[in-house]
């Protein structure tokens, strides 16, 4: 039975090893902040961190996450005050909000690896995540705002 370390806690998940991490998080562990959008690695709504790197949870079997550190939106910060989350509030980014967990996780991973990205680097990193409401201009501004603070 694979053991997942999610947001610093260990869980045994009663699921087949090839089960996508997305469903283990959402339906087994109740961490529904990570969203299902396409199931095919196309939209980024399910983006989480695996050992600090942004991955599509829908494309990550739980056996590949076994023993590695998984961080979800719920564990990005204790009180929602990660610089990226704060910037998302300051720029009033979300509309429907459904894609935003994934956007925030993607942005946080970018800034962890590259604290001072150029605008082009921001756009390049964020292009894996779809938003249907059209919040993209605000996403760019929020990542730029958070950049100095990570």
């Amino acid at each position: 039975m694979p053991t997942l370390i999610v947001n610093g806690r260990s869980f045994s998940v009663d699921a087949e090893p090839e089960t996508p991490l997305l469903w283990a998080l959402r339906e087994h562990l109740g961490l529904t902040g990570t969203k299902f959008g396409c199931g095919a690695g196309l939209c980024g709504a399910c983006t989480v961190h695996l050992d600090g790197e942004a991955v599509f949870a829908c494309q990550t079997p739980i056996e590949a996450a076994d023993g590695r550190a998984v961080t979800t939106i719920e564990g990005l910060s204790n009180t929602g005050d990660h610089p990226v989350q704060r910037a998302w509030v300051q720029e009033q980014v979300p509309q429907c909000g459904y894609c935003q967990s994934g956007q925030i996780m993607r942005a946080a991973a970018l800034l962890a690896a590259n604290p001072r990205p150029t605008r082009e680097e921001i756009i390049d990193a964020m292009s894996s995540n779809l938003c249907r409401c059209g919040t993209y201009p605000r996403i760019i501004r929020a990542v730029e705002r958070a950049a100095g603070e990570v």
Partner: protein
Amino acid sequence: MSGTTHPSRRGFLGSAIGFAVLAGGGLQVLRDAALAQPTSRAVNAWVTLSSDGEVVIRFASAEMGQGVNTSLPMILAEEMDADWSRVRVEQLDQGPVATFGNPNTGGILFTAGSSSVEGYFAIMRRAGAHARRILIHSAAQAWRVRPGEVTTEPGVILHRASGRRMEFGAVAALPQIVTDVPPVSDADLKPRSAWRLIGTNPDRRDIPGKTRGGTVYSIDVRVPNMLYAALALPPVEGERPVRVSDTRALAVPGVARVIRMPHAVAVLAERWEAATAARDALDVEWTTSSPFRSADTEKDLAETASAARDLNRPGVPWEARGNAPDAIAAGARVIEAEYRTEPTYHAQMEPLAAIASVDPDGRGAEVWLGTQSQTVSIAAAAQALETTPDRIRFHAMQMGGGFGRRTFFARDILRDALLLSREMRRPVKVMWTREDDIRNGWFRPATAHHLQAVLSPEGRVTALRHRVASPSVLAFAAPQRWAAANNRDILVMEGTESTDYAIPDFLAEHVILERRARVSAWRGIGWGPNLYAREAFIDELAEAAGSDPVSIRRQLLASSPRGLAVLDTVVAMSDFGRPPPRRAHGISFAGYKATLGAGVAEVSLNTDTGEIRVHRFWAAVDSGIAIHPKNLEAQAEGGIIFGLSGLLKERITISGGEVQQANFHDYEPMRIHEIPEVRIRIIESGAPPSGAGEIGVPMTGAAVANAVHALTGKRLRQMPFTPDRVKQALST
């Protein structure tokens, strides 16, 4: 008063309060709150006061990203004089339509057509003024003074003569409040000069939850003992399962049952991954008798276009002024053109999901659903269980995007959840995958537009006839409304009426065709296709008349000061007609119901690939009084990106009745690297507030098409303007 809300599940906690609990000393705050047990008291149907000073304001529209959780309560709080930092907001799950219905959506709880602020503005103001009056009368009674001597400041009731003050929360603790107050009339409402809240930009109440993964959408709902259901749906609408082999499916661990339904085969399992694996292991033979087997978008669009062109085919008049057919028959100079649009899919980011827990007697249920209409969904649930609406305990969930997808449609997945829960005697969550969502989508239908105009010798447009050929959306989506609509389809035809344009002889008509797919409203509704066609045609008329895109529109808008204002503003913002090298500008005037807008696109074109790049987009928007200007701007911006996505990239094709697209690889909305820089200017005309959620869409189509014409001399006559189509246009 009735009407229910379930705030505990939502991320709508006011940010100030939320941080108070979550930040330092949180435990102490919680313990004190538990000890104090604040009393709460309903003031009227919309407002509840708590003795700790919290004011709970309800709103009856459904939140799908447009910010009604903030804009609607702001209107009420303004008139009530509530302290906004002490306001908590609650979305209504259900309630009597007489109290809570939106007059602009048929008097029911229905969120569509950018009508929330427009429809509820007067209602929320009066509700706020009524609540304030109750507070004043209650305090006056407690102080034994005349109500006329009592006034308010945000959150406080005052008797200036004696210096007495009472916090709003203290009214909740009074032994008695006075609800029998004189009715509120318009004269009692605050003059605009006294507004403190409307027109400001407080943070949206839903945003903290949406940055923490805390907001609960219907797809997130989990209830104890719940089963998951994945559906095998027919490849073509209307087919039914005739043979089901489920041996392999039932062998998947965790699968509870396979149930054949009239229109689908459902797999019920303890785990979602088991449900989908078992669904994939099903072997289902479907009927092959559906009339939709012959649906073919390419062939059907050609027929749609010929129906639009064939003037012998009667059209249902939507708007007539003067006599356009006669004027055209007699016209010395008649210009004709044709435009087409193809079907589009909503691509809301949250695939459809519904959760139902049917009561043991099978005649009632608790239901969780993201829906644009609580009223319609409750009625659909009652119908599915052959029961009465009072037996449906409804939770209207935050929607992961709506865009028209969750208007009437959500009834089918809700019905399935109810029937499966009743059968299994357990709560059931039905989820659609993205593939299910696309292949069984309700699409904006293809349209063909045949336009004719008469130009006077001076180059004025003296007559215009706009024929739209398409199936009726209303007939499919809302058959009961259609039965009383006299063949007037508001979901297809609205926007053609062109009332801002001074054209003496005018006719807009609808050539109604049989539907060949499931059809639906799509953000912008008819305004998107209709204004793309009309505004691209206006540029053709400008060219024919030897005029230019701005002058001809200024002439047409001569009697519309608001229209002229948005047009002139966007011309100035964009420095229209003076683009950087190798780029061009295109302009479109656009409306959306009472809201007016105008947009300019700046484009370049890769002539080798046919790829259009929109670099910048400017828009001027007049939606009357702006309740929350920053949110209005966000909505307009989002609408523009949505519109550009549709016109550049999005196309549903159907062949042999089967939808050809499956996921975001072959139906890919615009990504972040493809967006233009967007600039919005809000024009405050002082008109009553009107919608903002869709105004961005209708201006995009013609702005881009007209810009491409300015760049290449070629007209783009069919949406979307995909690279292959652009190359084709360039080669003609």
